[in-house]
């Protein structure tokens, strides 16, 4: 039952992922990877920013240490999300369950899991993860296979899908809580400041997320602390 509920909640995430991973498949093949290499990367990584950066490093024949550090920095935000999911977990989340669930912590899966009012168990999380994994991998396979024949206008239009999903996650709770609006605005302001100034030459997109997210949520926590039961 919990597993089914997870699958159902994962479907919109999976459909959103289809379009983004489609773009990844397209780019991977034009960077010189085979269809199966692109698909394998998506199956084993399940991360957008990390994979796009990794692809760039592969294409430029970058060093292995550079690859490791880039992945660490870009994906460091998942550590914070995993802590939050850990806090939200019930007693079914055993060590083997954690070893498996850890594979599937993404921005959207995290947001859905921690956005629930009740605690989450391993079966719910397994369902919530499996559908997006299928969507992400399938989208890459499709993009890598047929991307070349897709008109640019369609491919470009799909580029906004993931951000539309982000809006659907943050706007409904923000409507009810001005403190959340404040945190979103601070995070967006930091991100825009870096993007529109020469700072973007020295701060990578992965670091931008870390700085903006930590500063904005810390400011929220200091100014508007939550009640602890």
């Amino acid at each position: 039952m919990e597993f089914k509920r997870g699958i159902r909640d994962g479907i919109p995430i999976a459909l959103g992922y289809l379009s983004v991973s489609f773009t990844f498949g397209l780019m991977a093949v034009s960077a010189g990877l085979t269809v199966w290499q692109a698909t394998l990367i998506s199956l084993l990584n399940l991360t957008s920013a990390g994979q796009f950066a990794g692809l760039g490093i592969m294409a430029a024949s970058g060093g292995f240490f550079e690859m490791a550090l880039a992945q660490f920095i870009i994906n460091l935000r998942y550590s914070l999300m995993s802590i939050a999911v850990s806090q939200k977990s019930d007693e079914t989340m055993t060590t083997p369950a954690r070893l498996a669930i850890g594979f599937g912590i993404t921005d959207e899966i995290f947001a859905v899991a921690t956005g629930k009012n009740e605690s989450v168990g391993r079966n719910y999380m397994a369902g919530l993860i499996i559908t997006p994994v299928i969507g992400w991998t399938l989208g890459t396979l499709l993009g890598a296979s047929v991307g070349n024949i897709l008109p640019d206008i369609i491919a470009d239009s799909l580029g906004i899908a993931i951000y539309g999903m982000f809006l659907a996650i943050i706007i409904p709770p923000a409507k009810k809580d001005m403190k959340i609006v404040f945190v979103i605005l601070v995070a967006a302001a930091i991100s825009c400041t870096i993007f529109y100034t020469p700072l973007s030459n020295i701060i990578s997109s992965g670091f931008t997320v870390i700085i903006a997210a930590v500063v904005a949520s810390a400011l929220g926590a200091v100014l508007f602390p939550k009640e602890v039961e």
Partner: protein
Amino acid sequence: MDINKFFIYLIIMAGVTYLVRTLPLLIFRKKIHNRFIVSLLYYMPYAVLGCMTFPAIFYSTGDLISGIAGTAVGALFAFRNKSLLFVAVAACAAVLLVKVILQFT
């Protein structure tokens, strides 16, 4: 690319990403009672998605006009509590519509 080199890249990517996600799940098991940490974790998803969305959403479609149109339509439907999928599809459709119009003007 050399197939061996590809697999080394792949293992590094997947390995680092997996550890970054899983170690905190294994380490932080007890309920945290520190008020600052609890508050920080509560605000974190909104901060992460806020900075990932802006300003990237405006440039996600290849041209600024359709990007802004898609953002406006997406925000409108998100404000009306539509589902993740509905908002994503509506934003894509708005972008496509604007791009088609721009092509004929």
